[in-house]
């Protein structure tokens, strides 16, 4: 099992790395642009293929453990980068995205997790897939928003104006917020069916609420016409709250009673 994953991961990382290299070289040699793009895309295709294969092998969607969710991020984050390039002609984001995806795969290769087919009864729900997928896409968009904001901050420090970049980070945050709201409400509706109440201040819920508030705050600050350059810092750092929500919760004192701690055994 782990051998299959390592092969897929190494092939994907190799695709992204060569794609990045060709992409960077294409500044001088435009003929390399197309093969670079094809290779970058191929990395994600390999990961999506692996997820499909893994799903079939497990007989359940691979969305239960942290390691499994990282597979999805690794496959999807580069796609956001490609979409942004396609839509707004901003080329640099995809390199950050591919690096982030490669990083996630490396974590998985260093910590192969237990391969477990079982799905506890509470997770056997029609809400399981929509809840997790909506969150996943939301996190992916917000990760991309945060990376864009970080790049904007870097440009600011070098005193370069960057209006398009600021609108990209804003737009990604907006989309991400919409998906976070859906994820939160889907989770509440599911919780009512599975655990009896829609909201119990479970640590994961509290942190999901906190991350939702963080972006709610951002959107209102944006609406109040706070300087965009200051908000780039905010967006870059807001993702830290999401990171705590995503896997930091497991290490907090409050986690002892959580229904959301991913299985670590």
């Amino acid at each position, binding site marked *: 099992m782990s051998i299959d994953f390592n092969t897929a991961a190494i092939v994907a990382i190799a695709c992204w790395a060569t794609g990045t290299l060709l992409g960077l070289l294409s500044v001088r040699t435009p003929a390399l642009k197309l093969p670079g793009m094809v290779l970058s895309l191929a990395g994600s295709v390999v990961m999506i293929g692996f997820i499909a294969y893994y799903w079939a092998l497990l007989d359940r969607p691979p969305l239960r453990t942290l390691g499994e969710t990282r597979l999805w991020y690794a496959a999807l984050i580069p796609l956001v980068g490609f979409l942004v390039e396609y839509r707004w002609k901003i080329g640099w984001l995809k390199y950050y995205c591919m690096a982030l995806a490669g990083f996630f795969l490396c974590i998985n290769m260093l910590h*192969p997790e237990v391969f477990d087919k079982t799905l506890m009864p509470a997770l056997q729900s029609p809400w399981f897939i929509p809840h997790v997928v909506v969150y996943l896409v939301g996190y992916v968009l917000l990760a991309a928003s945060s990376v864009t904001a970080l790049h904007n901050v870097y440009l600011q420090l070098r005193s370069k104006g960057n209006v398009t970049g600021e609108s990209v980070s804003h*737009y990604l945050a907006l989309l991400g917020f919409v998906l976070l*709201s859906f994820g939160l409400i889907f989770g509440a509706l599911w919780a009512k069916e599975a655990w009896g*109440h829609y909201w119990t201040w479970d640590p994961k819920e509290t942190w999901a609420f906190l991350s939702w508030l963080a972006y709610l*705050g951002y959107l*209102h600050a944006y609406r109040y016409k706070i300087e965009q350059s200051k908000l780039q810092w905010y967006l870059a750092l807001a993702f830290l709250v999401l990171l705590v929500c995503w896997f930091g919760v497991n290490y907090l004192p409050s986690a002892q009673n959580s229904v959301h701690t991913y299985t670590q055994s």
Partner: protein
Amino acid sequence: MVVVRRRWFQTPWEFRESALFTAVALFFGFVIEYATSGGGIALPRLPFNAIALSVFAILVLSIGLGFRNTPAVKWFGGIPLGLCLIVGISLLSLIGGILPQGTVVSASLPARLGIHKIFSGWPFALVVLLFLANLGLSLSWRLVPFKVQNVQFILFHAGFWIALSCAVFGSSDLQRLIVPVEEGKSGSLGYPMESDTPLQLPFSVFLHDFSLEEYPPQLLLYDPHSDKLMMNKSKATLEVRKGTTASWNGIEVLVLDYMPSALPGEGGIPQPADRSAGIPFAKVRIITGTTQREAWISTGSPTLRPDAAQLENLYLIMVPGTPKSFRSAVTVQDNQGNAVMANLEVNKPVNFNDWKLYQMGYDEKAGRWSKLSLIEVIRDPWLPAVYLGFFMIMAGNILFFWTGIKRKEVAS
């Protein structure tokens, strides 16, 4: 450009005044909490909470519409105060998200400040109430005069207002009780989570049958010296079935035969048995170095000793799989003669009158032989209002998404 610094309380008020106001509200919240020894806030129940909420809503709306040009009211319904209150709620949630909640600590300072039940304490209630006032004021200005372009704003903000206010004001009417019932018996007493004094329910639950299905058992190596279970080399959970192979350092195991349900037979060879009585048995071949042997192992049950295979100072054992599903066949009946037969299962609750019944648990020591089922019964009269709020938020969000895209297309 000369930067003119605003002085404190120079109109129009902005972030500084809002931050101070929020800090004062938090401070007072903690003072009241301390003065009441961390008892938290006790909300009235129906119909009084509904009356209080209606009065509050009417008050906020009339102030918003009657004094919409008064600077103080404008500030109270403005974004700066809204943002500061969001930060206030975030800070309290941060405490609630880091420190374990619900643990009862002695009469220490943190306990008196209520930081272990932050979400039912005074500071949270106060900040949420102010936030609802802020949100309500801004909403009133978008509601009157009504414009189609404000629909997205109204759906999202009114939805949030309704969901938050009804969840908070209605929390006193939420009843969650646990009904333990044994097979062939009925129960009509519900136990609250935090007390041992049962309450009489307006209905009874008769348990016909409790059944539990498990995932296939797993193979593990047990080291009695360190009292540790060892995972096999591939770190994968091994489901036992015919042909399964596993390896530990120097030990190879092959499952030759597998019976999901059997009982011990003559000469140590198990015989297939009915699912209600039988336990899983597996015939394994164990290869260590040059030696090879075969053995029957089993998971055991409350009445049958498990069979393990000894390998020098280690044991190859088979542990029962985790529960896949469990359900209770019940009849629920009230005094008026209404009765419903239902299968309660996790994720598949059943409605009865204005209650909802959930399969909650069972006797975990007995596992699938449990004769006891724990059923949770829940009544929440405010649920439809909260759900209305949820659906309005989602509708508002879809519009937000849509208009967001359209605006960007115009811009680009």
